[in-house]
Each structure stands twice: as structure tokens, then as C-alpha cells.
């Protein structure tokens, strides 16, 4: 779609596409279908040479004399195909306080950030991670239907949008901390841990249920995955 708009404006494009059937019908000018899941467009994180092979194959298509061109990248990346969602598992953590859990994971989180040169995926909500305990209380109050005067929510963002962003940040914090704590995980092991064993995971599951109850299905779905 965007490729067509660019090409029509006079800029040659080549695209990586994840949906072959879609590409066959929308006909971007040059497209390389890659057999990877959403979130894995270049195939393998931290594998520069693999990523370079994907890129080169896509860039090669710029040499085509006419289009539309749809090629297929031949290598597999062994990326996990099915994303585990919270409704698929049972959370066994009935007693844990999510705020305390965040505090306990914090040192792993800080190590992850340091080892990634200051990079973290946390940041969508705008709440710094050291203030996440208050964020947890805010979400717990929403789940319980009790009023909670949360001063730190930015005024220009809706409540629902803010809670989605908060959920993204809490997930990112916990998963980055876990990847630091246990670097070698197989497919879905991270998500299984998060949704089955953590108090933060249980809080987000309850948040999603509450949102669904309040008619916010899309937000609920996004939070619970």
C-alpha cells in the first residue's frame, strides 16, 4: 500500500512482505515475501549476516526492468510461529503483589539495559520504570472499579490508550528482565512464564477481562497477548 504511494510519487521501492496472498492481490511494485512471523521481518534478531541476506535479496529486486515483482526468500528463520496468549494458560500466581514483583526483577532489568547500551523497549506510557509501583496501583484500581487519582497519566492520552501503553511497558520490563535472568529460552518459554507464573501477568489478564467487560474488546485483546 505504502509502496504503491511511494512509487506513484516517483520513488522506486522494494518491500519485505509477510502475507504472500495479500501481496499477490495488492501488487506492490517489488516485494520479497519472507516466511517469518510478525515482529521478525528480517528473520533473526542479532544475526547481522542473516539479516543482510534478507536485505540483499530485497534490494536485488530494484534491478528488475518491470513490475510488479514478487519473490520469495528461501531460508527459514526458526522463529516461533504461534504467540501464546494469556487465555491459553492458567496463572498459578494467586498471592503475589505485582509491584513487589517488579521491584524484585528490577536488578535484572537494569542489567539488561546496561548490556544493551542503554536501550530498552520500555517508554510508551512515558512513566519511568522506577515509578511503576504507582502504575500498578492505578491498573489494580481500574480492575477493581475503585476510584484512583493517578496524577501521572498524561492529559492528552485517553484512559484506554494509556492503559494499553502501560501494559506494553510492564510486559517489556518483565520480559527484558527475564531475558537477562534466563538468556536461553525456547519458543514461547518467555510468554509461558509471563502469563502462567507472574503476578504482573495475572494483573494484565484481569485488566483485559475488565476491559472486555467494559466493552473495550480490542484493547482487551491487545493487552492479553
Amino acid at each position, binding site marked *: 500500500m505504502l509502496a504503491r504511494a511511494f512509487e506513484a510519487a516517483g520513488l*522506486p521501492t522494494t518491500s519485505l*512482505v509477510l502475507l504472500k496472498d495479500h501481496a499477490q492481490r495488492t501488487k506492490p511494485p517489488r516485494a520479497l515475501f519472507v516466511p517469518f512471523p510478525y515482529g521478525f521481518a528480517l528473520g533473526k534478531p542479532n544475526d547481522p549476516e542473516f539479516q543482510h541476506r534478507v536485505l540483499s535479496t530485497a534490494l536485488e529486486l530494484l534491478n528488475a526492468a518491470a513490475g*510488479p515483482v514478487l519473490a520469495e526468500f528461501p531460508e527459514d528463520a526458526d522463529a516461533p510461529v*504461534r504467540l501464546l496468549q494469556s487465555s491459553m494458560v492458567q496463572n498459578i500466581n494467586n498471592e503475589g503483589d505485582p509491584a513487589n514483583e517488579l521491584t524484585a526483577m528490577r536488578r535484572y532489568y537494569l542489567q539488561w539495559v546496561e548490556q544493551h547500551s542503554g*536501550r530498552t523497549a520500555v517508554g510508551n506510557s512515558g512513566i519511568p520504570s522506577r515509578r511503576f509501583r504507582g502504575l500498578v496501583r492505578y491498573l489494580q484500581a481500574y480492575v477493581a472499579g475503585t476510584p484512583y487519582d493517578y496524577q501521572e497519566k498524561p492529559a492528552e492520552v485517553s484512559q484506554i490508550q494509556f492503559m494499553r501503553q502501560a501494559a506494553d511497558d510492564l510486559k517489556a520490563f518483565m520480559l527484558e528482565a527475564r531475558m537477562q535472568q534466563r538468556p536461553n529460552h525456547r519458543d514461547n518459554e518467555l510468554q509461558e512464564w509471563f502469563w502462567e507464573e507472574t503476578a504482573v501477568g495475572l494483573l494484565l489478564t484481569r485488566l483485559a477481562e475488565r476491559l472486555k467487560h467494559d466493552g473495550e474488546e480490542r484493547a482487551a485483546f491487545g493487552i492479553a*497477548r
Partner: protein
Amino acid sequence: MPRIEDLTEIQRQTVLNFPCFEYEDAPFVRLGKPFRQIRLALVTTAGVHLRGDKTFTAGDQSYRLIPSNASARDIIQSHNSIGFDRTAVYRDLNVSFPMDRLKELVERGIIGSTTASYYSFMGAQTNPKRILEETGPEAARLLLDEGADAAILTPT
């Protein structure tokens, strides 16, 4: 990409119902130069942007500018979709937004240069009219103004 049968039911319905504009024509502009001379732009629909920039919200068809010399720690992903595995991007931004790879292509002499600005949109839009008619062409013109010879587009 997951095969249709591997997706959960709600994902299946989303994908099957995804508006798929079928076109008869296909605009096509030939690359006018050898690779090693081109200035390449990186554009994505992965919903990434500079930390502190406005986050993407549902139905947001605007773009964000990301300087090509930004570092990964200055970039976050606020894509509003219903859900995909983000742990690959947590580990390595390049898996969706290959900034480092493009730098290496220049270092290796495979391309001439990159544009100073890269652009990010948010994908998975059910009605991308504004992207097609307004913000997409605008980003293309801005890139052409910077001397872009081609753009590589990455999805979520």
C-alpha cells in the same frame, strides 16, 4: 509469516477481513543508477519512533521522522496492533528497522549513502486512505527532496 491455519481465530478473521485493495495497474519506476551510487531510504510500518515523540494510536495514519544516525536506545515501538511477539525487537531493533544494516551497506560500498531521514508509519490499518492519499506521498516527496534514489520498506 504464520500460515492462516496457525493463527488464532481472531487473528484469522482479522487477516481474512483485511481490506485487500486489488489493483489492475501497478506503478513502477525504474532505478536510474547502479547500486553503489544510490541513496537509500529506510521506511517502515512497524510503528517505531524517537523516544518522546508522539506515540502511535489506533487509526493513526501520520508518520514519524527518525534521523538515520539515531541510536537504537533513542527508539521505541508504540505499534497499536492487537498483538505480535515483540521480544525479537526487544533484543534487536534491526529485525524490524534495520538501521545498522543500512549503515553497514554503506560501509561495505554496496550502496552509496542513506538519506538523513527515515520514516515510520503504523501498519495494520483497516482504512489507510490518508496514508495512500496524503501522508504516504508526502513522505515520498520529502525523501525525494533529500535525494533518495530508492526506499526499502519493512513491515511490522
